[in-house]
């Protein structure tokens, strides 16, 4: 079945440093979504990418969808303490039941 792998599992940075998390799917995706879960909270939707090679930005966050629609990345420029949390990618395959499959998440901690 479809698998979504995310690396790294953990990342600790100094405030102001950049951060990137990578997501890879075993199959071609119709779309990829990114979520953020703050400590003690539930995952909250950030963005969806649909097109091959698509790049979207939200302030200091840049999201990319690979040309083959099998990988994606989230890059945060100049991290702030408010960026702390776990970032999940999730993808829907192009065939089958169209179930959204989550990666294992990257837990970001920041040293102020």
């Amino acid at each position, binding site marked *: 079945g479809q698998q979504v792998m995310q690396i790294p599992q953990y990342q600790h940075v100094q405030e102001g440093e950049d951060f990137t998390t990578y997501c890879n799917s075993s199959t071609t995706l119709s779309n990829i979504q990114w979520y953020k879960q703050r400590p003690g909270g539930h*995952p909250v939707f950030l963005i969806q990418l649909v097109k091959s090679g698509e790049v979207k930005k939200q302030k200091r966050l840049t999201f990319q969808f690979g040309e083959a629609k099998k990988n994606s990345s989230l890059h945060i420029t100049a991290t702030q303490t408010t960026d702390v949390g776990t970032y999940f990618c999730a993808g829907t395959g192009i065939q089958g*039941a169209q*179930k*959204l*499959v989550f990666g294992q*998440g990257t837990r970001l901690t920041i040293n102020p």
Partner: protein
Amino acid sequence: GAGVSQSPSNKVTEKGKDVELRCDPISGHTALYWYRQSLGQGLEFLIYFQGNSAPDKSGLPSDRFSAERTGGSVSTLTIQRTQQEDSAVYLCASSSHRDSQHFGDGTRLSIL
């Protein structure tokens, strides 16, 4: 409008008892997911309902776990003969077709 509602928010029970967790999705959302999340871990997929299709039960960890979705709306996750390893936060999410998932606040289940 109203988001995804889960009840109870906390449940403490003795080992061996049965528990029922409820999820009230956003009105009109055809897809409903149950996940389990242990402390500091990722989202463990349990079950997926999509419209009138047969549910995808591939994530249920044992036959002690079952779920139903009545009338395409409210869902109940039942755990029979609870074990200590069942202790976790159980999250429900709903979405419309290929749209983002909206999560409830979860039920924190503690098995004594």
